[in-house]
Structure formats: C-alpha cells, structure tokens
C-alpha cells in the first residue's frame, strides 16, 4: 500500500508538470458574467487568437469587481457595461482610454401569472412602479454589478427606494446574473436581466420576458486598457491589439454574427 501510494504521488507530480503554464503570449481580460455566460466570448475569441497567437484569458465577475480587480492591476483589459463607472476608472488614471464596443439590452422578466399586470409594456419605469405597488417578489442582483447599477437607475426614476422593502418583496441576492436568475426562477420573482444571459439561461422555469424595447434598457459595453503607468506589469501592447481588433471591422463583424436561438444578442457600435 505504501509503495503504491508513493508511486501514485510521483505519478501525480509527473502529471502536474503538464499543468497549463503555457508560455504563449496571453492577456487577462476582466469582464462580466454576461459576456461569458452568453457564449459571446467563446464565439469571437478564437478568431482573435488564431490571427494574433495571443491567448485571451477571461476572468468573468461582476462589473464592480472587474473594475476593482483592474484597479489592482490584475487584468490587462477591462470589458464591462457601466459607462459612468468606466469613465470614472479612466478619469482616476487607472485606465488609458475607454471605447464603446457594443450594446445589448435589458429585459424585465417575470412569472407567467404576472401579478403586477405589466406584460407587453415597453416602459420600464412604469413597470417597476407597478411591481412595487403590487409587492410581488422582485429579485435584485444586489452586487454592485453593471446590471445592478442599471436596475438602481430605473428605480431612481420611479422615485421608489426598493431597498426599504429589502427582505420582504424585494430580494437582494448579492450574486451573479445566473445565480440571481436561479433565485427568481425558484421563487417566481420579477427580475431585470440582460437579454444575452436570459437567452442562454437554461433554468427559466415559469419565467418569461414581460417588458422589453424601452430605449432606457439599452446596455452599453465599453473596453479600456488598464494603465501600464500605474501597473508596469500590464501587457499593454497585446492588450491594445485586442482592443484594436475588438473595435475594428473584424471584431465588430464577429460580434454581429453571434446568434443564439436565431437572435442577435449584441449589436456592435464602436465609433
């Protein structure tokens, strides 16, 4: 038994030398769960990697955390969707310059029974106000992500502070988009989600899209190079190449061609 165990350990170490400490050039992109969970990045990145030989490693977290990680220098490129926060990031010197990349849109999803009677509307503010007055359950990310920031903007427009009802009909999950969708699906709650995550989400249960098409629901994505003057370790030239590709014709075309269930999820709009 003991010699067997030692042999197994040696074997394991041997195997471990094969661990992927790949030496090919790579960049780390701090991005959001929506770009990853929708499958967009898996779809467009191979094209860039084949063209340049640069491996793109995506860390998918909430927008808030992605920005904080980038402030710490733990990424070369920031690809998120919270324009004011991104502009603050650049203004504070952490990022070099922000470029628009694409947009998708948010949709308000809820149970088929629709206790707040909002189905078919296209006014997000009115719909949220109706949900609040019906006190039907509403699931919020509650995690300072881009989606959460957008949701709070729309609540602000209603003049209602839902956090006052936190724990009753208003539920703050403090989790990613998918995890919060699981919560909503489980309790039949209303929820604001980006369309991409919604379309690729597999556990919809009784939920369906109730409100969409409000221009205020557009969700702009931007890309920013982390400032190498703040963090000399930043792989600036490879990162810039990725940004140039993403906002250039090849990247924009790749984004436009990504379909899920026959629907285009992201709309390129780099200037």
């Amino acid at each position: 038994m003991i010699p067997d165990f030692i042999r197994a350990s040696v074997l394991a170490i041997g195997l471990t030398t094969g661990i992927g400490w790949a030496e090919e050039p790579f960049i780390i992109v701090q991005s959001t769960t929506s770009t990853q969970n929708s499958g967009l990045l898996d779809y467009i990145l191979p094209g860039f990697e084949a063209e340049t030989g640069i491996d793109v490693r995506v860390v998918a977290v909430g927008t808030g955390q992605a920005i904080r990680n980038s402030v710490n220098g733990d990424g070369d490129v920031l690809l998120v969707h919270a324009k004011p926060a991104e502009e603050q990031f650049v203004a504070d010197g952490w990022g070099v310059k922000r470029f628009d990349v694409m947009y998708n849109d948010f949709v308000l999803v809820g149970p088929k029974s629709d206790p707040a009677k909002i189905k078919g509307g296209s006014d997000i503010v009115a719909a949220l106000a109706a949900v609040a007055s019906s006190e039907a359950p509403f699931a919020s990310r509650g995690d300072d992500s881009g989606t959460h920031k957008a949701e709070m903007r729309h609540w602000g427009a209603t003049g209602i502070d839902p956090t006052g009802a936190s724990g009753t009909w208003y539920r703050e999950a403090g989790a990613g988009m998918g995890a919060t969708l699981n919560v909503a699906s489980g309790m039949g709650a209303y929820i604001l989600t980006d369309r991409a995550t919604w379309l690729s989400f597999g556990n919809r249960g009784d939920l369906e899209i109730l409100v969409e098409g409000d221009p205020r629901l557009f969700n702009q994505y931007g890309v920013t190079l982390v400032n190498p003057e703040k963090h000399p370790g930043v792989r600036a030239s490879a990162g810039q190449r990725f940004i140039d590709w993403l906002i250039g014709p090849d990247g924009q075309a790749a984004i436009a061609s990504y379909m899920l269930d026959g629907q285009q999820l992201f709309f390129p709009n780099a200037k």
Partner: protein
Amino acid sequence: MQGFASEFNHALSLILNGDAELWAIVLLSLQVSIFAVLISAVIGMPVGAALAVARFPGRRALIILVNALMGFPPVVVGLLVYLMLSRSGPLGVLELLYTPTAMIIAQVVLVTPIMAALTRQVIEMLAEEYSEQLRSLGVSRLASVPVLLWDARLALVTALLAGFGRAIAEVGAVIIVGGNINHVTRVMTTTIALETSKGNLALALALGVILIGLAITVNAMVSALTLRAEREGLRHA
C-alpha cells in the same frame, strides 16, 4: 424542469464517453489538489509532529491556533492569497495570479492546518504510548519523530485523504485566485459554479456526480486502510 432528465443523460454521456474538455477539467482538478495536498503534507506533518513531541512556551496557544485555522473560510483564504498575488500586492511581480499555481497556493493554505492538526493529534497519542519504551531504547526526543511518523503512517495517509477531500471540493478560494479561466484555471468546482450560474443545472449536477464519485473513492480508500489497520492490529488504541 422539463428536459432535465435528457439534459442529465447528455451530461452523463459526456462523462462516460470521455469528453476531452470535461476530462481536462477533471484532470486539472486532480493535479492541483494532489500537488497542494503533497505540499501541505510536507509542511504540515513535520509541524504537527513537532507540536506533538516538542515542549516549548506557547505550544498550547499554537495548537489552538492550528486547530482554529482548520475552520478558516475558504473565501477569506482566497481573498488573502489574492491580495498577496495581486499586481498591487507584495508578490505581484511573480505574476502568479490566475494560474494553477495560485490555486495550489490557496489550497495549501487551506489544507496545511488540517495536516498539522491531524498529525499532531495522531502523533501525540502514539508518543504517549511509545514514550517510555523509546527512552528505554535510548531514542532521543528528536530521533523519535521519524519513528512516530512511520508508525503512524496509516493514520497519516487518512489525514492526507481528508486533506485531499477538502482541497478538491473547495470552490470559494480557487475561483478568486484562479479566475475560473477556460482551459487555464477551470476546475470541477468552479465549472459547477459557472454552469449553475448559467442555469445548466444538469451539467453542474453531472460534474457533482464525478466529485461525489471521487469522494466515495477517497472514503473507500480510508475505510480499506482502517480495515487493514484493524486486521494487522496497527490501530491506535
């Protein structure tokens, strides 16, 4: 939940048919955790043995500390390791964040206290039994350490497997320091977290089945060892 059964079957067939991507994830999990557990053993076992055999001021406090560290929340460990390895942290220049090495480090931090505490417990009991006999044979306190470690080998292998169980099933720390990067740092638990967040509960569950299978294997090994120990009378009374 419609289609769940078929999705689950699909996931199981991925596993059984040796889907390359899936098995790469399983293999990486094993590599990271086995490596982490071996390093933890190299650090933790001598520390545990020293705590059991040596007598020095502050020993009791150290034992309490090691025991308390066993219950350290993985997320906190992940955060601490992240802060160390971040480019703005003290070890940032090593460029280890978001690599398998970072995950190994986090798991080593998590598992080493387990190794040390379990080793201390096992060796202390054995040392009590052997103490007079070894002194009678002229074996010094220091020289008794390898004797005790060897004679406690079965219990120590059990400790090793317990550490492995903790390492392989852990998600909070490795997702922070590994970043769950596809093909680089994506392991079983972070894949489960990701697939759950995508609502792909069946695939998540299928991976969970592999993890449970591993847990059962590990426990079967422990119980086989214990059985063997009983048969050979090697059990510590």
